Structures are given as structure tokens and as C-alpha cells.
């Protein structure tokens, strides 16, 4: 897959304060990547640099090969951006606002009508199309903001805290919307809520104090280095057996699956280790009831990478 977004040694100073510290990462086409970190970790600053709102102090940011500073206007045509809190013009009606934004994105009259219709349908805004934005609920305003970002068919969607301030039902709906956008488009989304990232992103980039601590796959299909085994046998012996397999980095009882016999979570150095693990379990005479890929425990990963938060 080709790289849609490339950050290379991206750095941003706000006066004497270093907000983003030499951050480098790549997002491939069709991926949903989450930027995860506490408030003030530099997530929004990175998104704003890619959206063209901020200029980096040093380093480069490229979208589809276009430098966001050197080819600013061209790069912005490849991006649909939804800022935090979805700022919109409250006096405009939904369709009027979308038409306005479509015209700014240089859509021709025919293409504009098609694009607005498609965005309205995609975000289920039909009943609200003639409503003033100021009268919409928070959830619908967020949808309108995403709808404007889809105009012009950008290859990259940037969503800053899209579930902020939404009620639980709206959060679920927004999550579905974001998931549905993945695959056909590249999506970069920020959140400081771990659970949101687990449900939405394929990979997460964890940030703290402007530094990128790591980029990790959240979904097993993209990594496969963590798997869940349901094994019949004495717990301690099973643990020893699993830990003794070359390539196994960590073994833990899966507390969330309170099964009997126990379920184990194994972190391996490579996905192929699962074969060796299965062989070792069978050879040792334990009953291997199931073996399946398991998603990364984002909470544990986050805590491990961010330490006590004082870095």
C-alpha cells in the first residue's frame, strides 16, 4: 500500500514551548490511524500541520507526496479536515454550508450538486439539509463537519476528537461513520480515550509531551503478535510451557475471560510464533481448546509507554 501521509522529523515550537518533537511516522492508504495521548501531547498540533492550519518549525509533512508548506494549496485539496468541536457557521443552512465549502474546493456546478447530495446521503443528513446549523444537535453538527470534509473526494480525512461532547448513542453512530470511511479513504483521528481508539483505529501512534513513543497495531489482522489461547492444564505449568517457547515475550492470564480452564494472552515477537506455541502446548500434553489472534491491550501499552506520565 502506498503512503498517503508522511511525517518526517516534524517539529513545532510555540514560542519557547516545544509542542511536537521530531515526530516521524507513515500512514498507508486506506488505514485508520489514531493519534493517542493525554491533553497537550501534541496530537492536535500534528493534525493542524497536516491540515495546513499550522506550519511546522522544522521537518516535513507530506500528503500524497505533496509538501503541506511548499505545495500548500495542492496538498489541502487532498485533505478533508474536521477540527475539534466542529466549528461551523451557525447562520447557514446545512446544504448551503456544504455548497459553500464545495465551491471553495473548486467543484464545478454539476460536481458540486453531486458531491453535496452524496455527502448528505452518506452522513444521513437528508432530514436536516434545510435546517440552520445553529439549530442542530451536537451529533448532527459533527456529521455536517464530516460531510464538508468529504467534499472533493479527498484521499485523507483528518478528524480531531470527533466524539468529543457526544452522548453515548451519538458516539456509537460516529464510530460507525468513521469505521465506514476506512478502507476507501485514509483516516487519521485523535482521541485521548483509549476505548475509542481500540474500536476505531487499525493502528495507534502514542504521543506524550510532543514525542512519538511508538506506533502499534490495534487490530490483530494488522499485527498478529498477540494471541489468545484457551488451554486445559495446570495454570503454572501451562505458563512455564508457554514462556519457554522461543519468540514468546510475555504470558498472562486473560482476566477479562474468566473461563475454566484459563485463557492465556501471549505476546510474541513475530506472528509465526503462534505455530510454535501450539506445537509446544500439544507436545506438553495440555489440551489446546482454541488459539486466536488477540488485539493489543491498548491500555497496558499506553501505560507502559507513557510510564508514570512524568516524562
Amino acid at each position, binding site marked *: 500500500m502506498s503512503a498517503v501521509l508522511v511525517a518526517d522529523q516534524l517539529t513545532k515550537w510555540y514560542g519557547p514551548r516545544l509542542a511536537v518533537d521530531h515526530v516521524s511516522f507513515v500512514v498507508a492508504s486506506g488505514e485508520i490511524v489514531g493519534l493517542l495521548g493525554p491533553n497537550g501531547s501534541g496530537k492536535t498540533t500534528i493534525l493542524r500541520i497536516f491540515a*495546513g492550519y499550522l506550519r511546522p518549525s522544522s521537518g516535513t509533512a507530506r500528503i500524497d507526496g505533496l509538501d503541506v508548506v511548499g505545495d500548500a494549496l495542492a496538498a489541502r485539496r487532498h485533505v478533508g*479536515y474536521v*477540527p475539534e468541536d466542529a*466549528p461551523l457557521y451557525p447562520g447557514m443552512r446545512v446544504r448551503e454550508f456544504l455548497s459553500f465549502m464545495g*465551491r*471553495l474546493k*473548486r467543484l464545478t456546478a454539476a460536481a458540486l450538486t453531486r458531491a453535496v447530495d452524496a455527502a448528505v446521503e452518506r452522513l444521513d443528513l437528508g432530514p436536516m439539509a434545510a435546517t440552520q446549523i445553529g439549530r442542530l444537535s451536537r451529533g448532527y453538527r459533527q456529521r455536517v463537519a464530516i460531510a464538508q470534509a468529504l467534499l472533493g473526494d479527498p484521499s485523507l480525512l483528518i478528524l480531531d476528537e470527533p466524539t468529543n461532547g457526544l452522548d453515548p448513542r451519538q458516539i456509537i453512530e460516529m464510530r460507525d461513520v468513521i469505521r465506514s470511511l476506512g478502507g476507501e479513504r485514509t483516516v487519521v483521528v485523535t482521541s485521548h480515550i483509549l476505548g475509542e481508539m481500540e474500536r476505531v483505529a487499525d493502528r495507534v501512534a502514542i504521543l506524550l509531551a510532543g514525542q512519538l513513543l511508538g506506533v502499534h497495531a490495534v487490530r490483530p489482522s494488522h499485527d498478529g503478535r498477540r494471541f489468545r489461547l484457551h488451554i486445559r492444564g495446570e495454570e503454572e505449568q501451562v505458563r512455564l510451557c508457554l514462556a519457554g517457547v522461543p519468540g514468546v515475550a510475555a504470558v498472562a492470564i486473560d482476566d477479562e475471560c474468566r473461563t475454566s480452564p484459563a485463557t492465556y494472552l501471549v505476546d510474541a515477537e513475530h506472528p509465526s510464533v503462534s505455530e510454535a506455541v501450539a506445537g509446544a502446548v500439544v507436545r506438553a500434553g495440555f489440551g489446546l481448546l482454541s488459539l486466536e489472534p488477540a488485539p493489543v491491550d491498548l491500555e497496558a501499552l499506553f501505560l507502559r509507554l507513557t510510564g508514570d506520565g512524568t516524562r
Partner: protein
Amino acid sequence: MRNFVTLLAKEEKAIFSSPIAFAIVAVYLLLMGYTFTLMLFLNRTAELVRVFFQAAVLFLLIVPVITMRLLAEERRSGTLEILLTSPVREIEIVLAKYAASLTLVGLMLALTASDAIVLGVYADPDWGPIYSGFLGLLLLAATLAAIGLAVSGLTSNQIVAAVVAMGVGILLWMIDSIGYLLPDPFDTIVTNLSLVAHFTPFATGAVFLSDLGFFLTVILVCLLLSMRTLARR
């Protein structure tokens, strides 16, 4: 150019769908009508010099109210982020907002032209000073609008934008007074910064390129400052 037209249409709608614009025009016309009637019956001369000065003073107070929301409101509500991340140039945003504010000022000036029409119907005025007076008013209002736009770009608070722009305008209007206290060449410099010093010749029928150049220079500097404010991020 297409973006300019799109942005201008949005700004025009924002201005003319607001009750502020209608209140401003109504108050302006009321005060100007009062002044014109008073001058006509007291002086009984077919000229508009005092009307022009009255309009100039009103513009010092009114134009900052028109321009206060242009960028400050976008900054406060966060919509500036939406605009600046669209494939739009800063110059297009600045010019569209500036042109929209000039539309309202132009409307007010056009309505003031009714005074000249009344003079033309009932007397035989010297049209030269009237034409130059309107040109001077247009340049003064355009200068104040450019100052107001530049100040509006520096803050997210509309009231602050209006008050500061008003202060800058009034200070530039009467800054020549301090020239009497300053030694040469500072007295000349200060006098040449004065809005009233450059407006008076227009109002009295004398058009100098230097005065025209002054207003155009201030307008240009303020528009560049507005663009710089948007670009610095």
C-alpha cells in the same frame, strides 16, 4: 477569483442578514439627514462641506462596528480554521472580507448622495467639491475599513476589535494637533499621518495625488498586515 466571489457572497450575506447593518445604516441616515437639514436652513448655501465632515466623523465611529466581526468572529468561533485549511489563499479571504465591508460603506455613501441630488434640484451647486468630497469620503471610509479589518485579525473579541479600531482611527484623525508641540521634522511627519489633513482638501474641492497616495498606502499596509496575521500560524 472564483474563491473570492464565493467568499464575498458569504460575507455579503452575513453582513446584510444581520440587524447590525440595518441599525448602522438607519442611524447614519438619521444623523446625516439631521445635519444636512440643519446646514441647509442655517447656512442657505448650496455646498456639502460640513456634511462631508459630519459623515467623516460618523465613519470614524461606525466603520469599526462594521469591520469588528470580519476576522475576530471567525477566530472566536473557530471557523477560521475551516477557511484556512480549505484550498483558499489568505489574500482571497482578506479581499473578500474587505470588499464586503466596503459594500455597506458604499451603500451608505450612495444614500448620502441624495443630499447632492436635493441640492442639484433646488439650487445650482459647484459640483467639483461635491464630487471630490464624495471621493474623499470613500477613501477615508476605505482606509478606516482596512484599519478595522487589520485590527479584527489581531483579536478574537469583537468589542476589543471595534474599540481599538475606533481608537486608532480617531487618533489618526487628530494626530496633527500634536505636531504643534514637536520639533522639525517630526511635526511634518506627524501632520502627514493625519487623516483630517488628507481629507480636508478633498472635502473642500482640492484633489492632490499625495492625499490619494496616502489613503491608498494606508489601505495597502493594513491589507498586508491582515494577510500577514492570517499567514502567521
